């Protein structure tokens, strides 16, 4: 997501940055390219026009012309406007009402409502320890109600028993009643997919809204949506006053234009994004982080957070102690490998690092071998505990045995040992508080305990 857009904008900004002086026509040319880049990323035309106009206005003003690095200044303005367009802070689901609180999921057919319903329910029930009941009001698509029921069993969240032939509004009422009696905190109402121009079905949603008084009406939309995103968002919002947007399929290779358009058109926050087919693949949406990612500035905050999730405090402390003493054995190295893999491998980490956007493309071309991490792990596993602690004892015959045991070659064993040695040397310097930060291999610096 966003890679293509990020790459295009990067090229445009590179041209700007190199210039000492910028005149109006330079800015104009750059803005035309920005316009095309955004349009190709499926950002809605009206949104693109507004955006480009705002940036242009500021960019030809005093602010830029007087600054020492005008190119850099333009990039900053684009960044500011992007953040403004995406909305400021990330916003969470609002459950602020007397329980049971209703959450309504609405959207076009095939946008991912049912899956998103289950994902949100799982998160509320697990992370937030809420008692959640799910109910499907989709009486139109064959087996839609069964789908939610099956998902419910998978995530251990109860669903309202299905009564065939019952109308959506009656199902909603029954769900709220069951939740009151059962002492539930949250009722997730999954509605049928519908076109925003379908008056009859929109009236049905109105009546469900009126009878359940939801704290959240979440519009579920496909991140791959094109120019139509504005129509969909506007009409659902005009009709129902949606409270937030859930963008699905953010793991596709779409270019994220819908994210930019929908927020801009409705003024409603994008609250959550779906990032995969598994039911825990749901993330909060952080506008400023996404903006930096689009501009190729990386997303260090997310990287640190990811690392924090993966590395336990105690592990980190123990590691720091060992490093202070200048110890960095293969066991430590192996732990780092495992953490990297948990965080989505090299490419996952690289994607979040600043300035690596382009490098990443090059790496993909060079076909960086993610399985290297797995093989190195196997090599270490084929060693005796003693060998892992004292690499010096690994002589030629031991290397042969290790290579055979791990299904690799002696060269690969050597390579691993060399890499480990380099890292150990580096750690030693850091442990002693040596002069300056040594150059870390990419991907490892975010992982080190500080």
């Amino acid at each position: 997501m966003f890679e293509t857009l990020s790459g295009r904008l990067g090229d445009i900004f590179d041209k700007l940055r190199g210039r000492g002086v910028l005149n109006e026509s330079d800015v104009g040319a750059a803005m035309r390219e920005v316009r095309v880049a955004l349009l190709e990323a499926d950002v809605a035309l009206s949104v693109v026009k507004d955006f480009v106009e705002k940036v242009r206005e500021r960019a030809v003003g005093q602010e830029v012309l007087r600054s020492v690095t005008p190119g850099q200044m333009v990039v900053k303005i684009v960044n500011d406007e992007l953040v403004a367009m995406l909305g400021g802070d990330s916003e969470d689901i609002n459950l602020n009402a007397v329980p049971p609180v209703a959450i309504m999921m609405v959207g076009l057919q095939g946008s991912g409502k049912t899956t998103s319903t289950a994902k949100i329910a799982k998160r509320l029930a697990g992370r937030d320890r809420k008692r959640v009941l799910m109910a499907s009001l989709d009486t139109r698509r064959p087996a839609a109600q069964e789908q939610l029921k099956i998902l419910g069993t998978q995530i251990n969240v109860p669903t309202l028993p299905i009564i065939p032939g019952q109308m959506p509004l009656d199902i909603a009422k029954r769900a709220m009643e069951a939740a009151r009696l059962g002492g539930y905190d949250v009722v997730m109402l999954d509605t049928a997919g519908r076109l925003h121009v379908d008056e009859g079905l929109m009236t049905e949603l109105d009546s469900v809204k009126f009878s359940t008084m939801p704290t959240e009406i979440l519009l579920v939309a496909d991140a791959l949506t094109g120019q139509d995103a504005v129509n969909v968002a506007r009409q659902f919002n005009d009709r129902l006053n949606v409270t937030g947007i859930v963008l699905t399929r953010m793991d596709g290779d779409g270019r994220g234009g819908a994210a930019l358009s929908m927020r801009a058109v409705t003024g409603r926050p994008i609250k959550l994004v779906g990032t995969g087919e598994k039911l825990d693949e749901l993330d909060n949406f952080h506008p400023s982080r996404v903006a930096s990612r689009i501009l190729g500035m990386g997303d260090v905050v997310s990287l640190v957070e990811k690392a924090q999730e993966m590395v336990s405090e105690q592990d980190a402390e123990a590691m720091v102690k060992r490093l202070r003493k200048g110890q960095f054995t293969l066991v430590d190295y192996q732990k780092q490998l495992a953490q990297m893999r948990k965080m989505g491998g090299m490419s996952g980490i690289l994607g979040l690092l600043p300035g690596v956007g382009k490098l990443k493309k090059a790496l993909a071309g060079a076909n960086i071998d993610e399985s290297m991490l797995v093989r190195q792990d196997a090599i270490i596993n084929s060693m005796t505990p003693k060998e892992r602690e004292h690499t010096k004892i690994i002589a030629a015959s031991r290397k042969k045995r290790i290579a055979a045991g791990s299904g690799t070659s002696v060269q690969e064993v050597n390579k691993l040992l060399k890499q480990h040695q380099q890292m150990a040397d580096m750690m030693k310097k850091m442990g002693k508080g040596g002069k300056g930060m040594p150059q870390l291999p990419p991907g490892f610096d975010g992982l080190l305990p500080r």
Partner: protein
Amino acid sequence: MSEPEKKGWFSRLKDGLKKSTSSVSDGITGLFTTGVLSGKRKLDAATLDELEDVLIMADFGVVTAARVTQELSRTRLDKEVSDEEIRRTLAGVVAQTLIPVAKPLVIDPANRPHVLLVVGVNGSGKTTTIGKLARQFRNQGKSVMLAAGDTFRAAAIEQLAVWGERNGVPVIAKPVGSDAAAVAFEALEKAREQNIDVLMIDTAGRLQNKQGLMEELAKIVRVIRKADPAAPHDTLLVLDATTGQNAVQQVDVFRSVAQISGLIMTKLDGTARGGVLVACAEKFGLPIHAIGVGESIEDLQPFDAREFADTIAGVAA
């Protein structure tokens, strides 16, 4: 179904495309009402720019929109043109691209069964399209069998089973989590035994950038070929009209993995205009078989290039 009166397919198409039409043609009319002369106006660079914007809003994409406006400008630049003239020329240019790819889906009676593999990203409308096609084949007196190849998504098998029941056609299924290729293989053998005319194989939705899932799709095709080297006789990619420029990417990847033989575009009854179809036609030249313009079974229509172009440009029939 929900339709109270029986309408001809043409009026259905027009109804379905009304939204798409009105937005583009409103745009075109808008060009004239804002102009100094209402009704006639010089086709100058500014007007062309605006026209290009209108096409971009219809998901034509920047490149295709530029090409189409360029075609217009080549012949008509600086001439006085009417609203209607612009519409006609626009329709002509669009139709030119689409006519060569508008080909109906042909079931070859020599194939028993004629195997149709249906693929696409999640939520594009694969299962619904299969349900509608099944009814249409049944109405033509063909025997049909369905294979529930989406063994991943919850209740996908049940969803197809309901369509099977509605149309009175057998559905071959295995438990959730089974190998989709095995389902396809078994269905193909059963279809042969029972001398079935058309076998339609549903598949799980997959995003084209998920390599593992695309490999699984390639495997399904390989396994089908083991049972019948000529199958699948048609591999249909179902595209969602609301999708933007990503549709081009979808066609590209699915084509190379599963040798797509034709396209079907669904959900053209909303405000989405499906202009990306023009870009796809230009780039890949794959046949476009049908479009979905509504929820009832007859709303899956054969694709007619001229009609599509005319309605998109708002030419009065």
